[in-house]
């Protein structure tokens, strides 16, 4: 008998298990498939810092949340329609995220006494009334996977590792999704090193799918129609991948060799991994002995006339600050990627936060103006890091590109850009000997010449000591120092001349402007959309350029009675906006290592409407 299929607009699924259970893998696969079949998607991976915390423990729970929809969406969802819990700990950690009457699939094989005790359950929640408000589907995932793989020659422990694909097979059935894309991925993934794992994983996937089809346990499946997108070619992309491609594109379009210096650090390492694959683009990746060396090689490369880039997270940025200052005074192009995580100190490396903004502004000795740009969503990393490269090259300055864990690891559909439409990046190397002075500036941009070693007749010396205007020779002259400080500030300020006019979403003037930056974009937009549609005079501005601010920002802010600034910190942009524009902006702040929920922000915003 054909089972019932129900049309729904959107769904949120959360896969959770031990950090070795493969929740990230199947979450990513479900995302890929959902994107390919045309949904809008947003994801939130949430995993512990430990590679494998003790099995079954609460600390070891790893989760992957996916929101897919037939409408445009901006967030991974506040709460879930489906929770797949591979063990009691995963259930305990995530149950509060499941909606009432939500679907709960648990691996009942893992609900024995030991695991219950590890999760802090005195009694088995499958047997008492803990779960009465949910649709509970206890499935013997381990047993069923083992049975499906009976005829393979895989040993028992390896067979058990395939149970995530059994679970994925179930979810694909539940949402009427094809298995083809996952099957193709499995074949590619294991083809070279572990071809013997291809068949078992596919068997497990199919078994999970068949299980739902065959058992009476699952009576209804769901369908989420494709969303409306701007016409074009799409792929699904995570923020860090988007950053990698943006850097490759900037190198390619500028004709500058990319030299990326880095030291492994969560959550920036993926950029190093990604770029290391593109040697055929002439890209050099150098895994250095520490964060300082990583920025050092990028500066050395910049001096030579290459595109020097370094990437890290907050703790690494602290170590790089002296070298960034050197690039600032030497006026060399340099791009510094800071993929923020929750701090201070080592903080919470696998959690998200936006608390490095003031560090980026002020974390260097002396007067040290550095342009700062922030990406607001996974796909925006491409454009923003590309723009950071363009500014660095044009103005001969270090530029800080800010991303954050939430968008770095989150993924969404990306309208693949046409290479020909990418902005030009022109190195304009100095070759003319006559009239060459190392610090003689372009009249418009105040950029100094980029004269690379190897160019005859342009031999010159630069360094971290204060420069004499024009000649760049060492100078301790009092007036000159002040002049140079002002010139360096003015140079950064002039970038504002080419920042596009500020776009205000929603009301163009009125009661409330919500001003944001970085990864809070999706949540803010979702709330403002709702309120604007309800008829409120509410607008949303999201800043890519944080230093300098767009030149029309002050005027935009004045068009609203109140300005609200939601941030995942204690009020960094808030301080900057207050001091720059002397307005009584109000902060909405959260510092929990987690993004805002839509409902949280909505209740805060509603108070001001």
């Amino acid at each position, binding site marked *: 008998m054909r089972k019932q299929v129900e049309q729904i607009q959107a769904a949120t699924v959360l896969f959770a298990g031990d950090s070795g259970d493969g929740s990230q893998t199947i979450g990513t696969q479900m995302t890929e498939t959902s994107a390919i079949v045309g949904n809008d998607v947003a994801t939130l991976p949430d995993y512990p810092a430990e590679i494998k915390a003790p099995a079954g423990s609460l600390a070891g729970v790893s989760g992957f949340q996916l929101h897919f929809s037939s409408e445009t969406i901006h967030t991974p969802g506040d709460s879930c329609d489906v929770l797949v819990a591979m063990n009691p700990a995963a259930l305990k950690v995530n149950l509060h995220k499941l909606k009432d009457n939500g679907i709960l699939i648990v691996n009942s094989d893992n609900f024995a006494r030991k695991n219950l005790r590890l999760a802090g359950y005195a009694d088995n929640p499958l047997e008492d009334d803990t779960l009465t408000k949910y649709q509970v589907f206890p499935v013997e995932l381990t047993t069923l996977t083992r049975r499906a793989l009976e005829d393979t020659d895989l040993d028992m422990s390896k067979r058990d590792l395939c149970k995530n694909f059994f679970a994925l097979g179930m979810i694909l059935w539940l949402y009427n999704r094809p298995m083809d894309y996952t099957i193709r991925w499995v074949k590619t993934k294991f083809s070279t090193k572990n071809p013997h794992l291809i068949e078992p994983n596919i068997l497990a996937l199919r078994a999970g799918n068949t299980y739902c089809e065959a058992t009476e346990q699952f009576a209804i499946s769901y369908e989420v129609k494709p969303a409306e997108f701007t016409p074009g070619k799409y792929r699904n992309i995570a923020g860090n991948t988007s950053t990698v491609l943006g850097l490759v594109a900037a190198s390619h379009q500028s004709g500058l060799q990319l030299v990326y210096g880095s030291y492994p650090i969560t959550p920036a390492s993926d950029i190093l991994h990604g770029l290391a694959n593109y040697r055929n683009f002439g890209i050099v990746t150098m895994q250095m002995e520490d964060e300082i060396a990583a920025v050092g090689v990028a500066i050395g490369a*910049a001096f030579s006339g290459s595109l020097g880039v370094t990437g890290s997270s907050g703790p690494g940025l602290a170590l790089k600050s002296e070298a960034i200052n050197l690039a600032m005074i030497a006026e060399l192009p340099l791009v510094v990627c800071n993929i923020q995580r929750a701090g201070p100190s080592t903080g919470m490396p696998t959690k998200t936060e936006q608390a490095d903004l003031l560090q980026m502004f002020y974390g260097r000795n002396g007067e040290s103006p550095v342009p700062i740009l922030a990406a607001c969503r996974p796909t925006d990393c491409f454009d923003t890091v590309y723009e950071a490269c363009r500014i660095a090259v044009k103005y001969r300055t270090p530029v800080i590109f800010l991303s954050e864990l939430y968008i770095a690891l989150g993924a969404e559909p990306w309208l693949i850009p046409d290479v020909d439409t990418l902005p030009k990046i022109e190195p304009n190397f100095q070759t003319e000997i006559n009239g060459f002075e190392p610090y003689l500036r372009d009249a418009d941009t105040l950029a100094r010449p980029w004269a690379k070693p190897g160019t005859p007749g342009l031999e010159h010396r630069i360094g971290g000591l204060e420069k004499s205007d024009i000649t760049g020779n060492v100078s301790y002259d009092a007036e000159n120092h002040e002049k140079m400080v002002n010139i360096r500030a003015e140079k950064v300020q002039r970038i504002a001349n080419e920042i596009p006019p500020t776009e205000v979403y929603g009301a163009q003037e009125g009661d409330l402007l919500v001003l944001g930056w970085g990864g809070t974009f999706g949540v803010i937009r979702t709330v403002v959309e709702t309120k604007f549609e309800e008829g409120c005079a509410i607008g949303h501005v999201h800043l890519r350029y944080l230093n300098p601010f767009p030149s029309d920002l002050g005027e935009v802010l004045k068009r609203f009675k109140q300005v609200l600034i939601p941030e995942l910190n204690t009020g960094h942009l808030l301080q900057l906006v207050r001091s720059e524009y002397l307005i009584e902006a109000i902060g909405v702040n959260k510092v929990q290592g987690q993004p805002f929920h839509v409902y949280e922000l909505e209740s805060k915003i509603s108070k001001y409407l």
Partner: protein
Amino acid sequence: MKNKKSSGIPLGVPTLTQKDFMSDQDVRWCPGCGDYSILAQTRRIMPELGIPQENIVFISGIGCSSRFPYYMNTYGFHTIHGRAPTIASGLKMANPDLSVWVITGDGDALSIGGNHFIHLLRRNFDINVLLFNNQIYGLTKGQYSPTSEQGKNTKSSPFGSLESPFNPISLALAAGATFVARSLDRDPEHLRSIIKYAFEHKGTSFIEIYQNCNIFNDGAFFQYTEKETKADNTVFLEHGEPLVFGKEDEKGIKLNNFQPEVTTVTNDSDELIVHDQYAENTTLANFLARMSDMPEMPHPIGIFRSVQQNCYEDMMTDQIAFAKQQRGEGNLEELLNAGDTWVVE
């Protein structure tokens, strides 16, 4: 010595003289400083290297010695404390055709920049490192350095310093340096020849230069540099030659139970250590290096080790060429469109 010049550097620029390497900046070291001699020898030897000055880059860190690039009419970068090796590495990687020189001191290379120093040596970039060792912090006015002898009385150690000094040669050998040498500020000819050998060596070349700070540590090396004492306190290393020293070459060095020992040279001196700078194995070089920690032994001057190994920049260049051969020159359009894609009409 093998000729190692890569094709990008035009050979033979015979018209240059030392004056071509003098920048227009006044040299501002204390009168009498050993740095003057090192600068003079470097300027003198540069024309003999056969490369145009635009292909030469001096990179320094912080300290008295690190002002050096300002005085050379080449490309130069006076960077930050201890980090010159990192900037030099990035520069050399991005343009392997450049002749890259790191100028550093004992504090810069061995204290604040110790980590970069050892990693530079292990990566074996074709970079030349000149470490001016004066066993003191000069620019900050006289604190003990990581090469100062234990118990040294300075402003920061009025009761004597507590640390044992680094032996820069031993440290470099331990880090896998492929060219390790020592020279003297007050032996111009030797210094010039060692700088030239360092240049000719393909790989990271490390030269420790005993340099006199006449203000804060005057005479620290006089027993190795001054006429009356030099012969008895130094042994000049020559590849393939026995280790002999003294005014009349009357003393030699032999091994006794794995310890170097001074012996009198006789007609039948088979027992003397014969220097082999090309030995892959570092045992001999390590013995020689440790002699300067032994009060009764002369300090070896010259090339401790010179071996050929692959350079980082060459291996990276090969990887890039191989990747292009395997996958074809990178195509941005294809890269952006890679993976599972779908079209929305």
